[in-house]
């Protein structure tokens, strides 16, 4: 099969699964069969994706296929199709791989759900996989946007999967609105781009840029708008607020959507349109700086979280900042690499955390502790993930983080570089903190934990998870190690930039310092956590309060937007409609008033006739 057919196949299988599950209510309500269908579809997609990648890496030119979607007088306005090049095919593998693993994992993770909800879950998943692949394979920005939005909807639906929980419903809404706010920018950018370039096709655009036929006037606005979209999806400061809340969704969802795939779509978009951004260095600079700020602030906030998923969520935000900084520095390749590795190890971390939560029935780290003995497998893979994230050599995160840091420095973004470096330390610190608190340290609040122990009988599996959950964990862990080992020791890709020699040692030192710091604080308790807290009190308060961004947004939503809406609603009812009612009332009153001249006295009638006569004569006096 040629790569296009394969790609389409990969794309359509989950879509078909979604339609089948969605439309055939009995199938959906049966639960497990639906899940198997979905998994089969996505697994086949994975195979197709791998084959596509193989075929694509052999071809020099990107492979593109397109069909008309929207008509226009002078040729089609928009097309749909696939664009297969190394980037998209790699990304495709990541998406399908993580999706497959997560779906398998979910079989066990959600086995308590009623069958109907189970079916619904897999329907959403299939839709998500389809949409995400649509984003990845999209040959033009419009299709990308279409799938982009669908991805957002899936995220909304899956965050709100447990919609009975008010928090989940609220978080879903918040995620949708925040990303939508960014998407408004993306939409505007796409619309603007059409007038400027007359096409949305990525290859054509690239061609135009290379040929110098694309006007640069106004391009800055367009790239900025595109970046806004990426900002929302990839949770860049200040639109990152939705991602931590999104952890209300089931943990596998967080692993797939809010760690590995969807949130990286923003980075992917920027990678795809890198050539456009290069035309507008100011915007690129902005991307870099905001990336750095995001990375640092999110890392700080991650440090003060007590919820294991929240830590991972902020960590994701922070890592997305890393990727963005690299893109902003002008080296999208580095960002993309980090995207891939991060996808693997962050999914691993989330799934690991999920296994823990599944066992403990709590997200709070103080409910955990000393779990290494009970769940050695989970602890192992989680530690692999942590080391990856901390950028320890021979793990997946190491090489990509080096690349990002190097790229940032090479791009001349010194400020963001410092932030990233600080962030690297903090990353290692908070991740290690999680590891120590969850797996090694004694339970922080024994009483509290005891409260749970008697539940053990009910939940049964307070040990390592069954195969369906462990399998995916191990696959990801192995992938993280393989990638790490391969890229650290065997494969030194020629970087597009030259990084100074001191960079690697410094970065690794930062990571190790973080691990050590965490060890001292949370395992041996040599350093008192309270002391740390009081030393960094102002930052801590700010971090705990999420830098008051949520409050700000809430204020804007409640006291500005809704209040304004109420004002408009009131105006419509009592002024606009009011005027109409007044006119109507006046008409009625006018009838009443006029009726009074009908006095019933014939003298008045005669008077009216005479007066009318006079009026007629006066009117006509000019001609008389």
């Amino acid at each position: 099969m040629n790569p296009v057919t394969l790609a389409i196949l990969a794309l359509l299988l989950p879509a078909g699964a979604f339609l089948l599950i969605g439309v055939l209510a009995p199938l959906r309500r049966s639960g497990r069969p639906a899940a198997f269908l979905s998994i089969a579809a996505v697994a086949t997609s994975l195979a197709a994706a791998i084959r596509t990648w193989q075929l694509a890496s052999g071809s020099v030119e990107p492979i593109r296929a397109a069909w008309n979607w929207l008509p226009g007088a002078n040729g089609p306005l928009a097309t749909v199709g696939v664009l297969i090049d190394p980037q998209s095919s790699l990304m495709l593998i990541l998406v399908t791989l993580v999706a497959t693993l997560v779906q398998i994992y979910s079989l066990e993770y959600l086995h308590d759900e009623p069958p109907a909800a189970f079916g619904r879950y897999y329907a959403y998943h299939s839709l998500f996989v389809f949409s995400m692949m649509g984003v990845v394979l999209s040959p033009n920005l419009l299709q990308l946007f279409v799938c982009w939005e669908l991805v957002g909807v899936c995220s909304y639906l899956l965050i709100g999967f447990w919609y009975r929980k008010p928090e989940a419903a609220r978080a879903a809404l918040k995620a949708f609105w925040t990303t939508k706010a960014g998407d408004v920018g993306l939409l505007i950018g796409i619309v603007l781009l059409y007038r400027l370039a007359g096409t949305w096709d990525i290859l054509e655009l690239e061609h135009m840029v290379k040929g110098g036929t694309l006007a640069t006037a106004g391009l800055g606005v367009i790239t900025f708008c595109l970046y806004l979209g990426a900002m929302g999806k990839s949770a860049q400061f200040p639109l990152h607020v939705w991602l931590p809340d999104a952890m209300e969704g089931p943990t596998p969802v967080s692993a797939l959507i809010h760690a590995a795939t969807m949130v990286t779509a923003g980075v992917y978009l920027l990678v795809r349109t890198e050539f456009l951004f290069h035309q507008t260095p100011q915007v690129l600079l902005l991307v870099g700086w905001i990336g750095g700020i995001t990375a640092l602030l999110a890392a700080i906030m991650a440090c003060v979280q007590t919820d294991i998923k929240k830590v991972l969520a902020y960590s994701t935000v922070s890592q997305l900042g890393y990727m963005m900084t690299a893109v902003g520095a002008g080296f999208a390749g580095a960002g993309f690499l980090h995207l891939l590795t991060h996808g693997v190890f962050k999914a691993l971390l989330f799934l690991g955390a999920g296994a823990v939560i599944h066992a403990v029935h709590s997200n709070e780290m103080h409910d955990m502790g000393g779990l290494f003995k009970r769940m050695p497998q989970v602890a192992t893979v989680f530690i692999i993930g942590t080391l990856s994230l901390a950028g320890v050599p021979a793990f997946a995160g190491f090489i990509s983080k080096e690349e990002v840091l190097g790229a940032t420095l090479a791009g001349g973004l010194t400020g963001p570089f410092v932030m990233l470096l600080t962030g690297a330390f903090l990353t290692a610190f908070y991740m290690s903190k999680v590891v120590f608190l969850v797996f090694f340290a004694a339970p922080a609040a024994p009483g509290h934990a005891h409260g749970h122990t008697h539940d053990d009988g009910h939940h049964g599996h307070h040990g390592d998870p069954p195969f369906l959950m462990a399998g995916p964990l191990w696959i990801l862990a192995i992938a993280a190690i393989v990638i790490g080992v391969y890229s650290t020791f065997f494969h030194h890709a020629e970087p597009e930039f030259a990084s100074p020699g001191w960079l690697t040692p410094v970065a690794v030192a930062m990571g190790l310092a973080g691990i050590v710091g965490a060890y001292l604080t949370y395992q041996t308790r040599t350093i008192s956590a309270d002391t740390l807290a009081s030393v960094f009190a102002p930052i801590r308060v700010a971090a705990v309060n999420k830098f008051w961004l949520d409050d700000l947004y809430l204020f804007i939503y409640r006291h500005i937007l809704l209040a304004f809406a109420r004002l408009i609603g009131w105006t419509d009812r009592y002024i606009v409609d009011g005027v109409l009612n007044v006119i109507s009332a006046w008409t009625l009153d006018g009838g009443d008033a006029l009726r009074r001249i009908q006095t019933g006295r014939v003298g008045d009638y005669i008077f009216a006739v005479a007066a009318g006569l006079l009026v007629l004569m006066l009117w006509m006096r000019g001609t008389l």
Partner: protein
Amino acid sequence: MNGFVLAPTAPLGLEIGLGLLMLVVLSMGLFRPSTPNRLTGWVALIGLLVLTGVAFAVTPGGSLFAGSFQVDALAVFAKRLFLVSAAISVLATLGMSSDRFAKRGSEYHFAVLASLLGMLVLSSARELILLFVSFELMSIPLYFLTGFLKKDETAGEGALKFFLVGSVSSAILLYGISFIFGATGTTNIAAIAIAMASGSVFVKLGLVLTFAGIGFKIAAVPFHMWVPDTYEAASTPFVAWLSVAPKAAGFIVIFRLYLEGAGSTAMVWVPLVSAMAAVTIIAGNLMAIPQKNVKRMLAYSGVAHIGYLLMGFAAVSASGTGMILFYLVAYLFGNMGAFLCVQAVGSAEHSDDFDAYKGLAQRSPVLALSLLVFLLSLGGIPFVAGFWAKLFIFRAIIDQHMYGLALIGAMATIVALYYYLVLSARMYIEKPDNPQPVPIAAPLLVAILLCAVGVVVMGAYPEPWVRAVMDAANGLF
């Protein structure tokens, strides 16, 4: 030989026939039977039907008395209209429950026929004296007919008001005619147009005064004030006729005096008439809104309709004139029909108030539907006659580029629809207090259905009617 003797009077055939009918009706009153019956009514009806048949056979042409009586197309058209409306009214009267119509039927029908005679002659009159006398012949029996139910506490009042305002108006009218005569020295109507063209101030003054007089007859604001009181007081089938036929006669007079042969000199009336039309439409509609009595409501809405007819006059064109005639025919069916429905409900409920119409659709669907159709026609809704009527009027004045007036007319239609809809809501939406069907006398029902058929047929297929009115109107220009 006989044929030769009668031949010269042929153009007067209808009038002579009507005169004979009057004679019969009157003499039936002299030999009053011991048990009152409605025989005179039936005789009058049959006579009218025969005359109507004859009228539809008459072809235009022929004149008498040196052209002062002329049977032109307009006259024939008008005569048919008058006869049909009178026949419907008489038919509906046969369903009246009051025994006064049986006891004094001879006087009543004689008066109707006398007034009708006035209208018939009026439509042919081309000479001022004849015009005036026939105008008065039309009017005076109307006063009588208004007060016919003299035992009713309000009938006399309605008649008196009608009479007093009417006689003042007719004095003004006559004063105007005197100036017209004075300006020309002749009573021939054809001379008026010539005098107008020469710019005679007397003829203009005369026409202004005359307009006030006619304004009373057609009930244009501010000469309309007798209308609601009179309509409320008088017997409903008569009001149905009163609301249509004399108005039509007034417009015939307007055509004769102001438009016939006048050409472009008639344009001098346009601002005055359009202003009057606007005021009439607005005031009529506004005053109809707060009415609680359906007859009064219809009276005011009738005033508003006069405004639309005046709009047609303001167009000063053959099409405008023709469309007035069309409007009159549509109005004949619509308004008479509506009044007859009021009669049907009123005789059952002994009330003409809106409340009497509650749930009529569930009590008597046919009656309610007929009334709805009439109201829609009056409101100018498509597929019933009134729509075409309004449309044609608007078209005529838009032809003259009077967009503002058209818009006022169109917007006022909305106000009119308001109160028509309020009445419809009573019929269709509310629950009846008394679920019994409304008893309707057979003749009345026939009359209502006739009107309904007229309204619907005109609405569905206006083409022949349009052709007829245009034939009648073209002679004037």
